[in-house]
């Protein structure tokens, strides 16, 4: 009960509360990037390469520039400096310099008085290409090294990772059961409803300001400096609210550089808004992966070893690919795993839109494969699949690849979905066509190490305390819909006894806010939350001291409640927060504080790559899915999904539910509908929201979100992530439920009616063959 004990006294934390920011957002009172209109603003469009792989022979913009509405054209030569989100693999130019590597690769940008003129002008820029041989799928990339898309030009390899823990061959040899499986995931797109948009402004003082719908304003700030050769001190990046991102806006894109450069060339603000089609070609979505697994077990169901080989289709550029390649193996070792593990993953370049991180980066695809394998093992050794997972749970201590586990609500997750779905009474007993399936997963709460090596904080918050009773939270976090603004306001208000109406949040503006690295790898709650609490507690200490002095009590007897500070036993003399602020300001001078989060100094395995996948805390998830399969049409209907997620302490349960429901929705969509297909010509099969099928209200299951609140010792008030973890195992849960329903194992996503029917026919054919064979034997 004493002050500063961290047990938020004013009762906002953990309460199912309003979203808080929605009303202003939807009434157009908060401006998203495309809502911003600046005086004299020009509109620009990008010219994109129509060939999957081509050398740019010449670019002639004279026809375009002859139009009086067209103001400027820039090409790769105007920005001949490479960039890349991962410092070790900078392989992109804002506009292709010599070679364009996929249909849709940007090669020039044109600014005009209005968008339509800019669009027309893109067609009046004459570009001569020399078409080069292209690799349009994994096999082609593997078999034709002479295409030379890799860094050395001698192969098409982007990254190879081979890691081994324990003696896999011996363990497999000593297993009672060894099963093999091959799986394929074609890849999916983020498809946020807001397309990318950026505005560049270069003012009379030579200050470059870029507004962008990005998840990573800090990295954009750095890359703008690198590419445009301007001091970072002369650049300001502002990220307005973002209309959905899901990983698709977590690195710099051509439009940000092009808008900035055109603004510098013309001296006028320049806006670029991607069309829906461009959004699909800019991509950075989930990688296609071809995965081969061998999993061994003893006859009692204990896993002995896992051996995985994964080929990854990276598309045209590196993006986060180095990390993706590690994640395809590193993030599998929780929550149920074997003591021996080996994986070999190779990411290939292909002449397709580049792949990158999508919600559950790099590990959603292998999770589908591995959890499907576990279901097969369980069946073979005749152990209930939930029991099998319990038996192999890695509950505490270290994973086989050296990651530290500080809190773990996994077993409770399993128990909760088991009970909620009435698993024991219903699984395997629902009759042909209906079934239940289980799967589980774990995910990071932020990466322990920043993308570029440094010793500085990963997240910081500054508080400005006004004597009117208003506290402003300045922080670099990117509000992309997940609710970091609401979360930070809640944490600060809770510490200080403030009404949420008296807390303002200013976020993601590099001039106003201290650095946060961005909204990726599920780091927001953990890192920004810790930073906010650290800052708020300093202010709280001063308020408590001032109130203690006024009441003549010891500071440790002062506590914070909603709206006021009181002394134990003297509740009648409560001091309103505003008065406490004024007392403290009088005593200590102007109030303010900074707080930050730095991850523990050493985490992860002691081997090359051992830090990738290391996180200060891991979340845990279990899914049970119930499906109906129509054996006549092959249509799978996911009726209901129970998702239990260990998010540590649920600070804002409304937001956590939203993340769980949104993750499950997205996972089920990837299981049944979504497929990002680039055809043999390098063209997207349907770059629009009609052909790329994202679910409508009529296509979603009932989702039951179950919060499991373990208490993480290092999380803010015990909290961990919730934004990505709850996606992973939804896909294999559906796959395993389909098996329970109709007895087919699907090894390729999505589970479209055609694939389901094909598998059903194959099963019927083999059953009848077996029947004939049995008869003949008789």
């Amino acid at each position, binding site marked *: 009960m004493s002050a500063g004990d961290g047990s938020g006294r004013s009762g906002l934390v953990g309460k199912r509360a309003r979203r808080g920011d929605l009303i202003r957002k939807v009434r*157009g009172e908060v401006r998203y990037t495309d809502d911003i209109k600046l005086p004299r603003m020009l509109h620009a469009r990008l010219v994109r390469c129509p060939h999957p792989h081509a050398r740019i022979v010449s670019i002639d913009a004279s026809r375009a520039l002859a139009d009086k*509405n067209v103001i400027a054209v820039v090409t790769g030569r105007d920005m001949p400096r490479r960039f890349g989100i991962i410092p070790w693999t900078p392989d992109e130019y804002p506009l292709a310099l010599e070679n364009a590597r996929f249909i849709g690769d940007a090669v020039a940008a044109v600014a005009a008085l209005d968008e339509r003129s800019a669009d027309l002008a893109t067609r009046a820029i004459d570009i001569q290409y020399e078409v080069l041989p292209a690799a349009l799928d994994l096999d082609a990339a593997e078999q034709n090294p002479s295409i030379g898309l890799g860094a050395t030009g001698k192969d098409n390899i982007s990254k190879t990772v081979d890691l081994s823990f324990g003696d896999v061959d011996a363990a497999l040899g000593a297993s009672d059961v060894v099963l093999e499986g091959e799986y394929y995931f074609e890849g999916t797109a983020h498809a946020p409803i807001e397309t990318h948009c950026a505005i560049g402004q270069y003012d009379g003082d030579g200050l470059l300001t870029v507004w962008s719908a990005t998840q990573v304003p800090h990295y954009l700030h750095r890359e703008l400096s690198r590419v445009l050769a301007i001091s970072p001190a002369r650049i300001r990046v502002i990220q307005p609210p973002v209309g959905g991102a899901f990983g698709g806006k977590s690195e710099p894109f051509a439009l940000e550089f092009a808008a900035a450069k055109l603004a510098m060339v013309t001296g006028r603000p320049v806006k670029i808004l991607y069309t829906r089609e461009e959004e699909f070609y800019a991509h950075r979505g989930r990688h296609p992966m071809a995965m081969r697994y061998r999993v061994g077990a003893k006859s009692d169901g204990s896993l002995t070893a896992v051996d995985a080989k994964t080929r990854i289709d990276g598309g045209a550029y590196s993006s986060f690919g180095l990390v993706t390649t590690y994640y395809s193996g590193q993030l599998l070792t929780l929550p149920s795993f074997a003591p021996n593990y080996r994986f070999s993953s190779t990411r290939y370049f292909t002449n397709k839109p580049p792949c990158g991180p999508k919600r559950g980066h790099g590990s959603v695809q292998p999770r589908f494969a591995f959890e499907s394998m576990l279901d097969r093992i369980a069946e073979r050794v005749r152990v209930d699949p939930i029991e099998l997972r319990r038996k192999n749970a890695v509950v505490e201590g270290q994973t086989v690849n050296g990651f530290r586990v500080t809190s773990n609500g996994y077993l409770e997750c399993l128990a909760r979905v088991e009970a909620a779905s009435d698993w024991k009474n219903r699984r395997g007993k629902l009759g042909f066509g209906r079934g239940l399936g289980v799967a589980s997963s774990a995910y990071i709460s932020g990466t322990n190490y920043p993308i570029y090596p440094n010793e500085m904080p990963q997240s910081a918050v500054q508080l400005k305390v006004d004597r009117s009773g208003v506290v402003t939270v300045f922080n670099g976090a990117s509000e992309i819909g997940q609710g970091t603004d609401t979360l930070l306001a809640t944490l600060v208000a809770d510490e200080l006894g403030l*009404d949420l109406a008296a807390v303002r949040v200013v976020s993601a503006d590099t001039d106003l806010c201290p650095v946060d690295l961005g909204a990726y790898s599920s780091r927001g709650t953990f890192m920004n939350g810790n930073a906010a609490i650290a800052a708020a507690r300093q202010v709280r200490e001063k308020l408590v001291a001032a109130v203690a002095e006024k009441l003549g009590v010891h500071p440790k007897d002062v506590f914070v409640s909603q709206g006021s500070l009181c002394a134990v036993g003297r509740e009648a003399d409560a001091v309103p927060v505003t008065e406490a602020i004024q007392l403290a300001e009088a005593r200590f001078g102007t109030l303010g504080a900074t707080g930050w989060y730095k991850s523990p100094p050493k985490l992860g395995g002691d081997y090359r790559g051992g830090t990738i996948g290391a996180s200060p805390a891991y979340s845990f998830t279990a899914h049970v899915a119930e499906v109906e399969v129509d054996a006549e049409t092959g249509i799978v209907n996911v009726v209901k999904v129970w998702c239990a997620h260990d998010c540590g302490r649920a600070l804002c349960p409304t*937001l956590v*539910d939203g993340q769980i429901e*949104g993750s499950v*929705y*997205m996972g089920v969509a990837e299981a049944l509908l979504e497929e990002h297909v680039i055809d043999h010509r390098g063209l997207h099969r349907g770059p*629009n929201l009609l052909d790329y099928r994202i679910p409508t209200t*009529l296509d979603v299951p009932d989702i039951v979100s179950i919060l499991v609140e373990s208490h993480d010792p290092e999380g803010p008030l015990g909290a961990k992530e919730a934004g990505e973890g709850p996606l992973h195992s939804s896909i294999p849960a559906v796959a395993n439920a389909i098996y329970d329903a109709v007895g087919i194992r699907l090894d390729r996503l999505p589970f479209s009616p055609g694939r389901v029917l094909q598998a059903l026919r194959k099963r019927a054919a083999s059953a009848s063959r077996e029947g004939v064979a049995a008869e003949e034997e008789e």
Partner: protein
Amino acid sequence: MTASGHVQVNDESLRDGLQSPSVHDPSRDEKIALLHAMSAIGVDVASVGLPAASARAVDDASALLKEITDARLRVRATAAARTVEGDVNAIAEVSQRAGAPLEVYAFIGSSPIRHYVESWDDDFLKKRVGGAADAARRAGLPFCLVTEDTTRAHPKSLTTLWSAAIDAGATRLCLCDTVGHADPFGVEALVSFVKSFLESRGAGYVKLDWHGHEDRGLGLANALQAARVGVERVHGTAMGVGERVGNVAMESLIYNLGALGQRASVPLAALRRYTDIAARAMQWSIFPAAPLVGRLSRGLDAERDAACVLGDQAPALGVEPAARAGAGADDAFAEGWVPIRLRVNDDPVETFTRPSRTLLEMLRYDLDLVGTRQGCDKGDCGACTVLIDGKPQLSCLTLAVHCDEREVTTVESLKGPPDLDPLLDAFDRCGAGQCGFCTPGMLMTATALLHQNACPSRDDVRRALSGNLCRCTGYGAIVTAVELAAKIRRGDEPSGVDMPGAHVPPPLAPAKEKEKRR
């Protein structure tokens, strides 16, 4: 070569007209009203739709056909089919139900690109045409073969198709300029080609139709030319509604055929009544400068006449400078500025806009109402949904000029505190929006739903919102929020629960009081 006698007109409003993505599919009563209006201006033949499209299409076509008999309308009915037996059978069913005859207009793609894409060869085409014509013959219905894209087809393909049709008993061929590709000289050449073909086959009894589009602005001229060189029946739609720039306007067709002495003249007032009824049924705005029937032709507003004549000089109100400066690029399209007058969220708006400007662009860029969002700009996502005369519509697929004299309602009309709109209240309370980008469209669709249905079930909500995509929430919270909003509206739930602000400091004391205390 001059046609003798009466040239017939075929009104395709209820078939080809409804293929325009910008028109509303009328209710059955509205369709019947339009049928009467067609009859009143002497339309000879009218299409009652494509019955095979849906159960509703069968019902509507049957009702229309029955109305013709019951009300003794002079108009005769046709119905469209693909050259597929099932489609022809659907027409037969309509004919049986209504107990009245129907002419089958069965269409097939005839352009080389279509044949290439579909991998259709001659045998396949013959079989399809023959099969469909046989089905019509068995049902005792006259059969017309409609060769889509006739003007871009290879003559050999055409003769193959026509032969197959005639052999199977077709009595009519419809020549189509599906994408408005031809000019009057081409029309004459095509008609003389088909006529000589028919004569060579001894099939001079086969009658001809002309169906053209306005892409090059030659639709009317082509139709008149077709009539002049001996086509018996020419097609049009009310106000020319249809795909892309549309079909030949029926009112212009009838007026001009009258003026040329090829049909009886019809009074202008009757033609205007016909277009008014059609515009209401299809929720279409008659373009102010439309010939004969537009507001400017009707001479209602002299001031506006003057403004329109000024063309590019006129823009004044609420149009962004960049758009004006950008006029040069638009010169290529010879676009003018059109005056429009509408109400947006109860405010009168009087401005000039370009015919190509979408309502979404006008709202966001000209009126700075940025709450309405662009997600796809092609009618797939629903983020741009607004209410037009109370009905949810996609503003990205609606031209600003179509909103002339209408009431547009956007998300900005939903009130914040203290009279917090129940939907805003419930969405915020339930976490029914995350990034908030699709939410305005959701809210407008839900607003219309709650006006219509004060107590919707979860399924009602799901159905109503199925055209609005959300990528964050998984929809569950949205459906719950709409249910909650309905309860708040009905008074079954309190409004503004847990809104922040209960514990903020009170207002500072008035200055006077302070002085008194001293």
